[in-house]
């Protein structure tokens, strides 16, 4: 539903995130164009693996573990989710229906819960990918 080669939505996401939670801005040291590409790729990968929850969980937990190392706190998952939904609203307009929002709210609850689980676990010896 979002063209992953188009990085404008990802740019919008980060713009909104830094507006909602300016304290997380210093955590992003990578050039923002690259960061947007990484975010877009990750989102596409998550969407592509929704039917493979085991593999998805494994990767999300590893991601959560890395985010813990970046200094991300549990409460900071809230503005990320908010910026994500806002990005869809903003990019898709009326095409982003309430059913789609509900589906993404559920998806993000799952994503953030798995990442939190990962942040509570010992860091993996090596991420699988």
């Amino acid at each position: 539903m979002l063209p992953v080669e188009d990085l404008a939505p990802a740019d919008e996401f980060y713009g909104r995130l830094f507006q909602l939670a300016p304290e997380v801005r210093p955590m992003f040291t990578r050039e923002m164009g690259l960061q947007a590409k990484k975010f877009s790729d990750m989102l596409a990968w998550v969407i592509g693996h929704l039917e493979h929850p085991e593999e998805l969980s494994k990767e999300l937990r590893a991601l959560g573990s890395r985010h813990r190392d970046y200094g991300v706190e549990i409460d900071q998952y809230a503005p990320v989710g908010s910026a994500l939904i806002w990005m869809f609203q903003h990019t898709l307009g009326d095409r982003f229906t309430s059913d789609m929002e509900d589906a993404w709210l559920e998806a993000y609850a799952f994503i953030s819960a798995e990442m939190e689980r990962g942040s509570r676990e010992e860091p993996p010896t090596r991420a699988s990918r």
Partner: protein
Amino acid sequence: MGNLASPLSTAVVNRHVNEALSSPLFRKAERQARFLRFVVNAALQSPGATVKEFDIGIAVYDRRADYDPRTDPIVRVEAARLRARLREYYEGTPPDRMRIDIPKGQYVPLFIPVEGEPSHLSSELSILLPPFRCLSPDPGDQTFCDGLTEEVLHKLAQNPRLRVITHSVAAWLEERGGPKPRYLLEASVRRSGAEVRVALHLTELIGRGSTGFSNIYQATIKDIFATQERLADEILGDLSAALHIGNTGSESIH
């Protein structure tokens, strides 16, 4: 609104919320803990009233008065995450007397009583021990009876696998909707001259409610304390065997 029909008292709900919020899952999720506390308090204070997304945004997420939930989905995002967190909490901590559910599409929590074996006490070897009944007319025998109850209570309490609940504690637990003990240990004491006879019944209160063990003990009173101790040792030995537990409180097993 489910809360209107909820038989759970405010104290029970608050205790449940306090337990949940003190768990590791909520301790580091400060906003979600505030979210849960806010909607629970709102439901307790105004049963049947709705809780608005706008009010949560202002009270919990520090939004300003011009906050527009249509364009700022923070509360909806957090509600979905809170539901997931509650699910995870109950997976790790099976609900005791109740659980909280926040149905999709609303922010009013439901306080749902949980059926079934309600507590850790019931699954343990917990024994309710009311004072032994004295069937003799002599008022002095009541002292012997009370002393024997105390002796048995003391010896049972030495066994770490048993939880002995006195009558007053049982009343206290019941008043607060607390767990019920698994067994009831009743005894009556009769005396004729120097001979004393104790009839004992152990009844399981959970499940079939059948008498698990019954016996009569006899002794000749020479020294009151020694007799009480000997009877208590015999009783403890039999109970240990009946309940398949080790007898750590006494040296004598029959």
